[in-house]
């Protein structure tokens, strides 16, 4: 019952199984053409999983350094977080189960349009194990932190990868997408997706005037509080791709979470050029909406340049993922330059 045993045994078993299988299967079952060799993606070569590209049995190290062997091409995939559903669906695979907090509207339309009928797993925090098992998945992708208490259970049903979604950055998310590509044995396709994504981001960025380096904050506004996300949080790192600069660049000022409460005084003192905010539950008004009518706010840079933009909570704060980043970037460019 020791932790050592619990952690190591599956890993050893997985390694042993993969060795045996590799010996047994040889080169049979190569489903991907040789052009998908690892060397094809030098840009992403820091991801060690890329070396497994194209193999029938791919040994993947996940965010918890847990080693999982995935055989063949997974068809029935369960994604506990929305960003994983996003990345998987970009490979023309529709997840059979998604953690959507029991609310189909949580999946933004841009992703929803690529996904067929799926089964809700309940909350992303506590996905229903019986539902997942009933879906007979051949791959489960769960969040590294939020789902850790159920990971041992999930592994009894199907190979399970724990990857970063809830606490991730833009570049980590690209890396995660790459791992998902390897897991689905679609390295080439994922590299194409990422190349398309780079092109999309480049197109969006082309609309950004040269020399754009305005500072911004991204925040959630509720009736009672205003919380600013730190510069290491996903949305902020996406906006930095456009050349914008996150204002709260000192994460040490933040507690261990992603966001911290900030009063109007502090906000004005930070004085970002741009404020992107979402109202919790997308309610018509929140604390920040009332702040915007104050004299103090009107003297701030953001107010003078009409730099406060209200965004939707779902795409900006809950989705993440490749498509999620494109939606955020496109919306930001639309808000900033009307393009």
């Amino acid at each position: 019952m020791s932790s050592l045993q619990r952690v190591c045994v599956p890993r050893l078993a997985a390694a042993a199984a993969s060795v045996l299988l590799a010996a047994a299967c040889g080169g049979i079952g190569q489903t991907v053409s040789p052009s998908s060799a690892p060397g094809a993606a030098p840009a992403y070569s820091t991801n060690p999983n890329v070396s497994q590209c194209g193999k029938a049995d791919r040994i993947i190290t996940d965010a918890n350094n847990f080693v999982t062997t995935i055989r063949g091409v997974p068809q029935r995939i369960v994604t506990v977080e929305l960003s994983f559903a996003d990345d998987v669906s970009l490979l023309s695979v529709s997840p059979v189960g998604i953690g959507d907090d029991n609310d189909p509207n949580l999946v933004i339309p841009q992703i929803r349009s690529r996904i067929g009928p799926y089964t809700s797993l309940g909350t992303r925090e506590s996905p229903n194990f019986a539902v997942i098992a009933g879906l007979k998945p051949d791959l489960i992708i769960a969040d590294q932190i939020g789902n850790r208490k159920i990971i041992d259970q999930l592994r009894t049903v199907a190979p399970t990868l724990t990857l970063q979604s809830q606490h991730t950055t833009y570049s980590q998310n690209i890396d995660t997408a790459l791992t998902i590509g390897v897991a689905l044995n679609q390295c080439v396709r994922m590299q194409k997706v990422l190349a398309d994504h780079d092109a999309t981001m480049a197109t969006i960025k082309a609309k950004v005037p040269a020399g754009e380096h305005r500072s911004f904050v991204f925040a959630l506004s509720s009736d009672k509080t205003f919380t600013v996300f730190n510069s290491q949080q996903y949305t902020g790192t996406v906006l930095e791709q456009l050349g914008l600069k996150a204002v709260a660049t000192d994460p040490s000022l933040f507690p261990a979470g992603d966001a911290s409460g900030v009063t109007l005084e502090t906000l004005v003192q930070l004085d970002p050029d741009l404020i992107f905010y979402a109202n919790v539950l997308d309610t018509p008004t929140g604390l920040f909406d009332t702040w915007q009518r104050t004299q103090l706010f009107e003297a701030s840079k953001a107010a003078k340049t009409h730099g406060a933009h209200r965004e939707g909570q779902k795409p900006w704060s809950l989705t993440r993922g490749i498509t999620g980043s494109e939606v955020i970037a496109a919306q930001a460019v639309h808000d900033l330059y009307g393009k």
Partner: protein
Amino acid sequence: MASSGSAATTSDVLPARARYPAGVLVALAGTGLLLVAAFWDLAIGARPLSASQVVGGLFGHGNVLDVEIVRSIRLPRVLMAAVIGLDLAMSGVIMQGLTANPLAAPDIVGVSAGAALVVVAAATVFAQIHGTALVLLGFAGAGIAAFGVLGLAGVGQGRTSPVRMALAGVTVTAMLLAFTQALLLLHQNGTAGIFFWLVGGVNFAQWSDLLVILPWTAIGAAGAMLLAVALNILALGDDVARGVGLNVDRTRLLGVLCVVCLAGAAVAVSGPVAFIGLIVPHTTRRLVGNNHLLVIPLAGLLGATLLTFADVGARFVQFPFETPSGIVTALLGAPFFLYLARRHRASA
């Protein structure tokens, strides 16, 4: 003096034990401390302001922005700290007076938890309820919890044992807290700001919030003062009180209404700030005796002072980002509770 904290015995709560000279001293010292705390709280903020700038800002002199920061952000916050502290402290005094029970306080009896549950439900399930409507909902939650626990703990049917009331309160609080936490869990995407509020604090107070709470504070405080004499008589025991012609049941009803008004409104606006209703009344009674005419206003003053200092303390936790001021009172108050519990020598 020996056991003024445990009001469980009649001799403790004789109205004769009012110490007016001490009262004057406490009033002066309390006011002084409140002013110090208020000024300190006014002087802290992301924008560095000198003392003279703060004073100037209060009176409308100086840089327009400084004036605006002092007047529209820092001042309402400081005032809110004072008002909430006053509300919670006064409601604690009344509750202890009504129940002749040293452990009665809005957070221990479940009043805060009742109001908090209703407010969380309003924020997560119904999303758009604020201002006075939210306060009225808070009254409903606080009222149900207060009447429930006090009634069930046997208030009005002879003296209640402090143990029973504390146990009843703790258990009802646990139940209400379980419901609150379940609401938070089942509405995860709507809880971003709620958790902060649930710890309690005045960090985001605005003038509009003050306008919402001030009428209820005025009503509650006035009611408390009007009840002071009746509470003094009630302290002699129900039988004696009836003997001198006090309508005991009506006094209790009005008292609980005052508590609901004060604590319910405070929780609805600022969240369940912990332990002020326990610490302050005890300290006040130790200082000035048991005459409610003296204890109620002075407890209000000291409560205001305490929460204002707590708000100052909360600013240092992760400056310039916000920490709910309720954290400070919770960490201060819990050991005090332990001290009270240890002092308890009755063998119920």
